[in-house]
């Protein structure tokens, strides 16, 4: 097992290097002057000369790459010319929102997808099965941005005057600025606390601020729903097909032949095996969520990594584009690595070898 872990980690290294390379080239390949690309059209020649010198842009390309790697490892992801702020700081401000959104979407996806998948799989070809699969097929075919806009319309306009009305954008009600939880608790303002305090729902929950909680949660429901629909459909389908596969296997027949009650057969024997592939789908959905986050945040006006990335692309804020892309890609690799290891741990067939 330890050998397997070591091997997987080793596999990740060339990939991480590849990511660094790609993001490095990203800025270099953009047509035009790298200085003006990074600092904006208005930079003067003087500033540019100093910039090129400081960034070592006159050095050979591999030296530049080395400098880039060094910068990344020391946490220097450059500076956004649009805001004049370090990319790293911007990242740390926005990452909590994206993570909160992704987690909420994932929760929705699992809480709805798994039960429906189980029912579908167990009652093969029943009405519930057909209905769920039709729903899943549709869900997987819907563009996220369209779903988001339609949900906005539905809950803000159509249901706007009912109790089901939900706010279409933003993270909190206007004018509501809740206290960070560490202040409420009298804890020191450490970075890590600050990071989590930017997750509005979590922060409100931790500070016991019911009003803020309701506001934050209300603003999070629609984006989470929009973002979570595709993973929900994938999870439901995977659960169903996995359960169907397992239910036809020999050891399920043995379990029944032993006289075990059906519930025990399904839960203890079938599901325990069937959920393994689903766990990996759940983990890997995080990758899909990251991609969808760009679209969802843009539509719902959430200031997370996705929206900032999109804004940076359209305003040609290349340092931000490069830095955010790098972090997202690395995060993706790490998540996949964790999922792979988790799968290995849960699957005794592989664990022992």
């Amino acid at each position, binding site marked *: 097992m330890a050998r397997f872990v070591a091997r997987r980690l080793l*596999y990740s290294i060339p990939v991480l290097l590849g990511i660094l390379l*790609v993001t490095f080239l990203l800025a270099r390949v953009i047509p035009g002057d790298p200085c003006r690309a990074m600092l904006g059209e208005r930079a003067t020649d003087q500033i540019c000369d100093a910039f090129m010198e400081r960034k070592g842009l006159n050095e050979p390309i591999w030296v530049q790459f080395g400098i880039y790697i060094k910068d990344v490892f020391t946490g220097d992801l450059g500076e956004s010319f649009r805001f004049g702020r370090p990319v790293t700081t911007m990242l740390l401000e926005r990452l909590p929102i994206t993570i909160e959104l992704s987690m909420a979407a994932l929760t929705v996806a699992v809480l709805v997808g798994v039960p429906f998948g189980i029912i579908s799989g167990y009652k093969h070809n029943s009405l519930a099965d057909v209905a769920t699969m*039709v729903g899943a097929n549709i869900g997987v075919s819907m563009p996220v*941005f369209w779903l988001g806009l339609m949900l906005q319309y539905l809950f*803000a306009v159509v249901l706007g005057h009912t109790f089901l009305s939900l706010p279409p954008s933003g993270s909190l009600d206007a004018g509501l600025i809740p206290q960070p939880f560490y202040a409420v608790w009298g804890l020191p303002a450490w970075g890590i606390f600050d990071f989590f305090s930017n997750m509005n729902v979590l922060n409100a929950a931790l500070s016991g601020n019911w009003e803020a909680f309701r506001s934050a949660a209300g603003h999070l429901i629609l984006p989470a729903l929009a973002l979570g629909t595709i993973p929900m459909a994938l999870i439901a389908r995977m659960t169903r097909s996995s359960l169907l596969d397992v239910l036809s296997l020999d050891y399920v027949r043995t379990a029944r032949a032993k006289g075990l009650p059906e519930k025990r057969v399904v839960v203890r024997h079938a599901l325990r095996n069937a959920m393994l592939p689903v766990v990996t789908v759940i983990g890997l959905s995080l990758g899909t969520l990251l991609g969808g986050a760009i679209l969802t945040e843009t539509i719902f006006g959430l200031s997370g990594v996705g929206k900032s*990335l999109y804004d940076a692309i359209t305003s040609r804020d290349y340092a931000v584009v490069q830095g955010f892309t790098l972090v997202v890609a690395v995060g993706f690799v790490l998540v*996949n690595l964790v999922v792979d290891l988790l799968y290995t741990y849960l*699957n005794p067939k592989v664990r022992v070898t």
Partner: protein
Amino acid sequence: MTGPGSLVPDPLHPEGPLPTGPLPEGADLRGETARLPETRGLWATAFRELSHKRSARIGMVMLGLLVLVAIFAPLIAPYEPTQVLLGKEDVRPRDPPCIHLFGCDDSKPQHILGIDGNGRDEFSRLIYGSRVSLIAGVGSVAVAVAAGTLLGLLAGFFGGRIDNLIMRVMDVLLAFPSLLLAIAIITVMGQGLINAMLAISVVTVPAYARVVRSAVLTVRENDYVAADRALGVSTSRIIWNRILPNSLTPLVVQATLGVATAVLEIAALSFLGLGVRPPTAEWGSMLAAERNQVFTAPHLVFFPGLAIMWNVLSFNLLGDGLRDALDPRLNR
């Protein structure tokens, strides 16, 4: 990570391109030797199985309709997609739909879906958008399949360092969330439909490369290939006659499902303003243009999105149906 050394199923197609397994007892009870698809005509069997499955039938019908709409667009659409009507007719941007059949006054010009933000007929743009969608989706997948097949063949055939190198590059490509990577590529290449198609092709190549590579690896060790070599059959014939047919089925399934993904991603890119250039009528960019008007003119957002969904759903149903139809297992 779904790469070599990973035990993890591919999340987008978790059931896998072609499940394998032992034939169930039912095969024996029929008293016939189970007949492999090859002996009965692969396409004949596939079509027969497909037509049995209701979802696949629906997919085929949906796709058929879409293709017909795309082909006969000039006949169906009352106006040109890029024709600005402001000045020529008495209409204003974002005028609501006017359908004579449903009571709209006959004196006003008929616009089934109303006018878009730039004064063009929404319905015509919707119809013509089908062309862009289909061509973009199928085109990018075709390029990806071609490139992926080549890479897969190289990797599988030559093995060793070349295999390692190619697969590592594929892994790096897979390490990025696909939309993100496509965005990055477009940022570099510049906006445009062709560029968007190419970006999506690049992002989806790894899947096809892996399918072909694994087919090569499986077939390479087979006895009939050894027999071929002993008989002096040339490598290219081995590729053509043995390897390609073997990889055909998973490729076809993957490609069909891949078109669905490609259409979604190209629409997403256009939505973000990184795909087609205006004034091309493409559903994603039509959605993007009206996105802030969703509360006042929801129909301008609803129908393009619905059209995208129609397109994607048809390919998804077809791909799922193909996967089940080409499954060597006889039951289920």
